[in-house]
């Protein structure tokens, strides 16, 4: 083989930034957007924005949906979509706050929420993987049914966490180093999600299943089982989120998590994950989510009129993504 040619090709390949580095560069756009928002905050509300308590408040606000976003990132990288997240969280919160469950104390309540979430995810996953339902439809059905069930169980009432189970609420009120416990839980879930996605066979196979399911199957991966597990994982995250929302609101309610599906998916996509699957990062999703949360926070601090907020929000989304797009060329849904 002629050496020069090989060298040139090697050079060609080497000249290309490897996937991971590119991935980080892609986050640059998001970081820039985030930085701009921070600057806006500092300029418009110097006395309120950069306070520790405001930062904590931003993170607390982001925590619930953040946990859900981690699960959604897996599902979307795996080529699917989960519209049921908010409803499943609501159902888990209601189930965990029924008097029957509350009788067993906070631990059982937490486990109950997690089991209900995971169970709902398994059902969606089974329908998609083995029942061959389109994910959009299967999880839409789950959304509708879970909300209905939550309303039924709660008789459409908001269910208070009983005083004897206040330990659960402590997650929101107890602070370690000034930061409420639930923010730590959020951080932990993000970290675990990152590790699973990047360092385990499960994570790497998720990319394969989403990127090219036929190739994954031919490589000997049990695509169906994996798909089902992805939705179970998303359900698990919804269960954890249910614990957080119970802590924050001291209640279980069928109305919790309304429209979370849109917010979670939007965060994931702004974070650079393609709806077509096979690509994406947890970090990107979380940055996407923080951008959303920061926008809301800035609006609150500045007391903008709602209609103007909505208009501004639309524009900011476009700009944030345009910033990020600079580094991307792929087309997707």
């Amino acid at each position: 083989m002629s050496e020069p040619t090989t060298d040139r090709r090697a050079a060609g390949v080497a000249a290309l930034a490897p996937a991971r580095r590119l991935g980080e560069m892609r986050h640059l756009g998001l970081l820039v957007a985030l930085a701009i928002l921070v600057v806006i905050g500092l300029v418009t509300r110097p006395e309120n924005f950069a306070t520790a308590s405001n930062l904590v408040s931003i993170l607390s606000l982001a925590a619930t949906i953040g946990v859900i976003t981690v699960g959604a990132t897996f599902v979307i990288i795996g080529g699917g979509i989960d519209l049921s997240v908010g409803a499943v969280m609501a159902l888990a919160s209601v189930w965990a706050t029924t008097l029957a469950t509350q009788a067993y104390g906070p631990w059982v309540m937490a486990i109950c929420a997690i089991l209900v979430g995971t169970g709902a995810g398994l059902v969606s996953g089974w329908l998609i993987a083995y029942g061959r339902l389109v994910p959009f439809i299967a999880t839409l059905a789950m959304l509708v049914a879970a909300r209905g069930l939550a309303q039924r169980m709660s008789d459409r009432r908001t269910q208070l966490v009983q005083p004897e189970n206040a330990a659960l609420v402590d997650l929101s009120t107890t602070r370690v180093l000034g930061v409420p416990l639930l923010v730590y839980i959020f951080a932990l879930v993000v970290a675990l999600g990152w590790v699973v996605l990047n360092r385990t066979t499960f994570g790497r196979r998720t990319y394969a299943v989403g990127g090219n399911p036929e190739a994954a199957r031919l490589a000997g991966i049990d695509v169906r089982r994996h798909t089902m597990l992805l939705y179970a994982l998303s359900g698990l995250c919804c269960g954890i989120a249910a614990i957080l929302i119970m802590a924050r609101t001291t209640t279980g309610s069928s109305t919790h998590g309304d429209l979370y599906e849109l917010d979670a998916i939007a965060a994931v996509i702004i974070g650079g994950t393609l709806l077509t699957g096979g690509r994406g990062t947890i970090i990107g999703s979380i940055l996407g989510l923080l951008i959303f949360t920061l926008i809301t926070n800035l609006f609150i601090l500045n007391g903008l009129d709602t209609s103007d907020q909505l208009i501004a929000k639309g524009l900011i989304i476009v700009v944030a993504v345009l910033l990020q797009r600079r580094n991307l060329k792929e087309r997707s849904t």
Partner: protein
Amino acid sequence: MLVIKGIVKQFPGVRALDGVDLDVRAGEVHCLLGQNGAGKSTLIKVLAGAHQPDEGTIVFNGEQVRPASPIDAIRLGIATIYQELDLVDGLSVAENIFLGHEPAKLGFVNRAAAGKAAREVLERLGHGEIRPSAEVGRLSPAAKQVVSMARALSHDARLIIMDEPSAALAHDEVANLFRIIRELTAQGVAVVYISHRLEEIREIGDRVTVLKDGRTVAVGLAARDTPTTQIVSLMTGRNVEYVFPPRGGRTFGEEVLRVENLTAPGVFSDVSFSVRAGEIVGLAGLVGSGRSEILEAVYGARSATGRVLLDGRPAGRGVVGAVRRGMGLAPEERKAQALLLDQSVTANITLGSLPGFARFGWLDRKRERAEAKRLSEMLDIRPPDPERPIRTLSGGNQQKAVLARWLLGGRKLLLLDEPTRGVDVGARAELYAVIHDLAERGIGVLLVSSEVPEVLGLADRVLVLREGSVIHEGDAAELDEHRVLDMIMNGRAA
């Protein structure tokens, strides 16, 4: 080692395999031959556990087996390189190679081990320059093919099936592939090898099984000694001259295409040439020499500096203008770049000339179907039903449909990138005739092929490319294969 008897596989409406027999011995290279759509890929998918046969038995290493899924086949020791590149674009080279059998502890991937093992396999394949951490989606088709091979080698397989592994490879790469195959067979590994290039079969094969219309028509022929005419007539059921139509007799008209100083930094530089009406100009070169990119730049699908003149006028901006002005491109990767897999053969054929079938945007579907039918018959696209989804056609037949697209709509200049990739011997002869016929009708043709004989046999004039530059231009008649190979590999200008 492997004995297959009476395999039947039925698809909705097609009996793809209709009683196939095959026996493969340890340490041999067993070649599968057959026309496009004969059932070769389907057969190996049955072996690989990707399809379930309706009837028949498979005996592997003395035991009757029935791989229910690819995992089963891999566990049995059967590794497969599929015809359609089945890699995951978003993952790295190493991750692709070890997909499904990652070196891992408690579910955690041992990335160092994977990287090291990947490097070893790649080096063994002579491609140490492909970095295990590179993202597969950014590799060239040839490099992807190498990764596919690396994956097959990474399994400790007793039987390796290769479905047209050389289709995306150039001459030197094929030699490399053969070296590996010889190493494998020396260790007692059996190889099932599929290719439409008879000369490869002769070089590497031990025995040949011929499939036709889903049936075995000949078993265990000697790969080296069986006369070509016999093989071809077994495959096609008739006698096909595996030759090029006679050169000459054509007169060239006005210059249709003039390319001046076309440059795309890092890909090709300062390329100038012209194509006249009725002339076939061939681009020869190694994979990676920038031929596809030149075609794309001429077509307006890739940005480059320099001038492209069509009929003496600057070509319009972009592909839309190029097509409107009478260009057509049959791209290299048909699945990714040319086909609408969910659509019918007809819709695929007429895609490039829709305005010609419409009045005020309203489609004349009758005429569309009639034209598609005419072209299907002309190119012998099988099955002969233009209303079928093109997804259900074999690779070679899909390729013919792509070509058919540009036989419509009064093209002046056709850019053909590897037009016979994956096309069988019989159909290839037909395609050659069609290309000649086009030229005879005054169409200019710019042709890229990795098969030097094809370039020399078809083209009137040849440009030899090396590392993005034209190092030779001359009459095809004055060149021979040896000289061209010498130029493209060693850079020795004639």
